[in-house]
């Protein structure tokens, strides 16, 4: 098996329009793969296809050797949606405890995760009273609970302060070193440098798949933001 996730000629239609045009991609196991591209480029759709919640029009997606969406995969994937999918009228701890009971982890694990996502001080606060970034972290926490083999995170660091963002990226790498495969989307290019491998998307197609260094080399520019622009201007890799 060459990838923890193997995508072949994936096509997805949403609202009568094709939004993914035959995407093929391998996600390496035990690495942090960044999915980057502007808003509307199809990142979330690709992520939803990997998790198996997206109806696809064609192609194949296999995850950890099984077709995406297989019931056997559900306990092995951690999924963080783009909009925080948490109950606004419950506290941080109540939210995590509920998802924890569904995936079968105990109260200790819930406490660990509360600390991990930096919400120890807010643990008994109702989610509706939290800031957007804090809410996103509750949502991230729910994805981490079961210690998944594959962690799929849709824009996990939006609206976070730089210090916290750094801590989370360090944590992602820690998880990857422990063998977890991470697929993380972002629309901010300054996060690209923190990924082991980059998947650049635009208009429902892949623009490039490379390590940050390869990308710099290929385009001859140092800044990944500028490298992305260069690729777009060149019309592909």
């Amino acid at each position: 098996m060459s990838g923890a996730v193997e995508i072949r000629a994936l096509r997805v239609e949403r609202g009568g329009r094709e939004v993914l045009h035959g995407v093929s991609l391998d996600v390496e196991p035990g690495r942090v793969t960044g999915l980057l591209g502007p808003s509307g480029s199809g990142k979330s759709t690709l992520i939803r296809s990997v998790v198996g919640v997206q109806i696809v029009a064609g192609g194949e997606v296999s995850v950890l050797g099984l077709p995406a969406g297989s019931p056997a995969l559900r306990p092995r994937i951690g999924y963080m949606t783009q909009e925080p999918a948490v109950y606004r009228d419950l506290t941080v701890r109540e939210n995590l405890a509920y998802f924890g009971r569904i995936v079968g982890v105990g109260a200790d694990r819930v406490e660990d995760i509360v600390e991990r996502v930096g919400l120890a001080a807010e643990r008994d606060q109702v989610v509706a009273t939290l800031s957007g970034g804090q809410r996103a972290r509750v949502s991230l926490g729910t994805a981490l609970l079961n210690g998944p083999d594959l962690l799929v995170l849709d824009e996990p660091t939006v609206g976070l302060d730089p210090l916290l963002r750094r801590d989370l990226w360090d944590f992602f790498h820690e998880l990857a070193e422990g063998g977890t495969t991470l697929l993380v989307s972002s629309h901010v290019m300054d996060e690209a440098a923190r990924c082991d491998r980059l998947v650049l998307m635009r208009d429902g197609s892949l623009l490039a798949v490379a390590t940050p260094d390869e990308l710099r080399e290929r385009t001859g520019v140092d800044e990944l933001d500028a490298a992305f622009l260069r690729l777009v201007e060149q019309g592909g890799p």
Partner: protein
Amino acid sequence: MSLRATAATALRVLRQLRRDPRTIALIVVVPCVLIFLVDQLFADREQVFQQVGVPLLGLFPLVSMFLVTSITMLRERTSGTLERLLALPLAKLDLLLGYAVAFAVLAAVQGVVVSAVGFGLLDLEAASSTALIVLLAVANAVLGMALGLFLSAYARTEFQAVQFMPAFILPQILLCGLLVPRNQMAEWLQWIAALMPFTYAYDALSRAATESALDARFWLDVAVVVGVTVLALALGAATLRRRTP
């Protein structure tokens, strides 16, 4: 199926309700006020109040749980938590049963309080037993929950979900026999009434209110209420899609 997931879901829904004490107060207090209004309305016609009052006690939970569930479920769909839950190792049945248990608990509270007012303060009487009326009220609540859960799939917004009340519930209240005995209605209306779950919920309550020895007809009504509940839950489960466009 997992008892753990069902219990966790029921607890979670109850916690959410507890955070909204005003809704709980409305669910419990409003039917008490309404039953008092009906009592006063028929102050000179005790017989009519007896006929209408007892079935009303058992129908309130159906209406309130229908509304509460359709809105709660709609929120679950639109907030993304449903997509999130269905991506987890959670059986749809566990989610639905969790909801059913939580709302049955709420309905039991409502049923007990409203019955206490009706039987205790307003001198309503049930020929069978008051406990049976409360039990029927809880069964009706679960029916209302199942219908609300199913129909919530057809509402995109909370405005639409609220409109299901006049569109779906009101005609059933009009035709179930509460206002006009069904055998006095035009025949085509009787046929429509026979297709509505409310009719059987009302019949069971009405029989429990007036007959001390309950016959097969009563149990048939109960069977229809339970059957429609199961059917609506199954249809509701079918609307919970793990994959969406």
